[in-house]
């Protein structure tokens, strides 16, 4: 994938008072000052994560005592064992739920968005731009302002406190449709589609075997977006679910956190559980860097 700027004429230079200088070496911001400033920012972003790693092997007393650097007091195995057995091992059930909500939900959402974005870009049908305008309007509606109305509707229909109440809403992402349309415009050349049609491929066949393949980077970008959004979502499951066996991991950790005042032994569980919940996302982001960058920049540089 290339990131190329459309060729643009350099602005007419003002030639009024000063002639061409030889290029000066920048002295104002010296190299060490630049790197020191960035280093400070890196410390700020990494410090809380470092704390999480260092605090996760501590027991309740040491955690609340704030003594992080004494390896003789690290009991990571005990904490993991506590995590696996607390409330009948429910933590790993939450983890599995999150993987289902975010993994399957993200995949299906990316597919739904890619189909719609492709159709918006490649096909003509009456009322197309009006419909697309509606999609864009959907981007502007805050998701949490939607959660309560969805709850009210779900309780009317009787699906509150079910898997579907959290799963189905997470398949919708108007911004993903917008992104997919941008990707379809960039990745699927009209000539290729034309050739497929000449060869007699049907429209859906053309999409499935050519369009979708060419849009794969966009598909992955939308998937990553949605996976993160679902994994991080808190308000919707909080509103919809009361059965703790259906909780995603973020809601589960919150429910434990609210009990820490009465039962301080939950503190290490919350900390160790948080560390485990962060790991999959960190791995996904480091491994798939080039895809999320493509998605973010396509969506917002425009």
């Amino acid at each position, binding site marked *: 994938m290339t990131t190329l*700027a459309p060729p643009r004429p350099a602005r007419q230079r003002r030639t009024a008072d000063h002639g061409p200088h030889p290029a000066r070496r920048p002295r104002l*911001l010296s190299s060490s000052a630049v790197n020191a400033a960035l280093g400070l920012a890196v410390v700020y972003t990494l410090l809380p994560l470092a704390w999480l790693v260092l605090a996760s092997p501590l027991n309740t007393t040491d955690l609340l005592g704030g003594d992080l650097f004494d390896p003789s007091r690290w009991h990571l195995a005990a904490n993991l064992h506590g995590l696996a057995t607390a409330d009948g091992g429910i933590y790993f059930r939450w983890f599995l739920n999150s993987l289902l909500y975010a993994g399957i939900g993200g995949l299906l959402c990316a597919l739904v968005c890619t189909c719609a974005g492709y159709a918006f870009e490649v096909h003509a*049908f009456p009322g197309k731009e009006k419909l697309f305008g509606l999609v864009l309007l959907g981007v502007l509606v805050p998701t949490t302002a939607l959660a309560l109305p969805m709850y009210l509707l779900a309780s009317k229909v009787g699906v509150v406190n079910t898997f579907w109440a959290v799963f189905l809403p997470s398949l919708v992402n108007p911004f993903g449709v917008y992104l997919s349309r941008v990707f379809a415009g960039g990745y699927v050349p009209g000539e290729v589609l034309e050739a497929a049609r000449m060869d007699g491929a049907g429209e859906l066949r053309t999409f499935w075997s050519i369009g979708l393949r060419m849009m794969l980077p966009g598909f992955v970008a939308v998937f990553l977006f949605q996976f993160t959004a679902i994994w*991080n979502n*808190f308000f919707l499951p909080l509103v919809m679910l009361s059965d703790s066996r259906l909780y995603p991991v973020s809601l589960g950790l919150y429910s434990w956190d609210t009990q820490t005042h009465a039962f301080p032994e939950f503190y290490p569980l919350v900390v160790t559980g948080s560390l485990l919940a962060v790991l999959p996302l960190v791995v996904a982001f480091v491994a798939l860097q080039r895809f999320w960058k493509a998605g973010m920049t396509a969506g917002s540089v425009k």
Partner: protein
Amino acid sequence: MTTGTTSPTDTAPARTGRRPRGRYGAPAALIAPFLVLFTACTLVPIGYAVWLSLFTEHRSGLGFGGSTTVFDGIGNYTHVLADHAFRSGFVTIGCYVVLYIPVMVALSLALSLLLDSALVRARRFVQLSLFLPHAVPGVIAALIWAFLYTPGVSPVVAALGGGLNILGHPLPAVVNVAVWEWTGYNVVIFYAALQAVPREVLEAAVVDGAGPLRTALSIKVPLIRSSLAVVALFTVIGSLQLFTEPTILQGAAPGITSSWTPNMFAWTAAFTNDDYGVAAASSVILAVAAAALSFVVTRATRNRPARRTETAA
């Protein structure tokens, strides 16, 4: 302009005009799944919320015979808008935005300009480290910071001499969590936009004698205006929804009430007070406010046509 480099809206006729079709089966089949889900999970809930917001429940005094639902017109709206708690939620958001947006945008802009300068070592590592907090769910970010704010537990408070009482000031406490979560994300966006600034423009500036600071402020920043606008827009929409972080911090910071933000107000109305009419009305007001604000932000920042910098080869 050549094909493949235009925005979706202007390619449409060119791409589709080539093959006139009598039927719309394929596009209908491709768009239908999204449309069905969008209708079921966005349009219908909004419609239902608007409908519910027009009714109120009268409970009988003794609790027998349940309650009756009666049409109340805009009664819920006047009730919500007159509610001091709801309005103070918007005041909170207002203060939050005034503090958060300038700090976060300035910080991410400054960091991306530094990253864009030729002097950086370990650029990939820095970029990834700045972005990493975004991979942390909001619940967990708030949980971590709640620990880091608590005197006695936190090495940060200890390092600062133990005198820092940030939990007594909920607003900066919440703003800091948001800055931590979002700065790196926006650095990626700004940095990508800066990379797309044509090199010859920058060279021309250097030839004209502009120093690095001058180049950054007078050339680079104006050229990535559209990215700034998008970031501002999404940050404003995000800010209105503030819920997760203050809800988590509530346990540690007593200053955060159950109606500290409009979303928390709506949640309390629905689940503590069981007043669905008020909850629906406040959700609708919030959605309208977000849409209106987005419109204003879009209008205010769209003085020049959007640029496209990301294209396929």
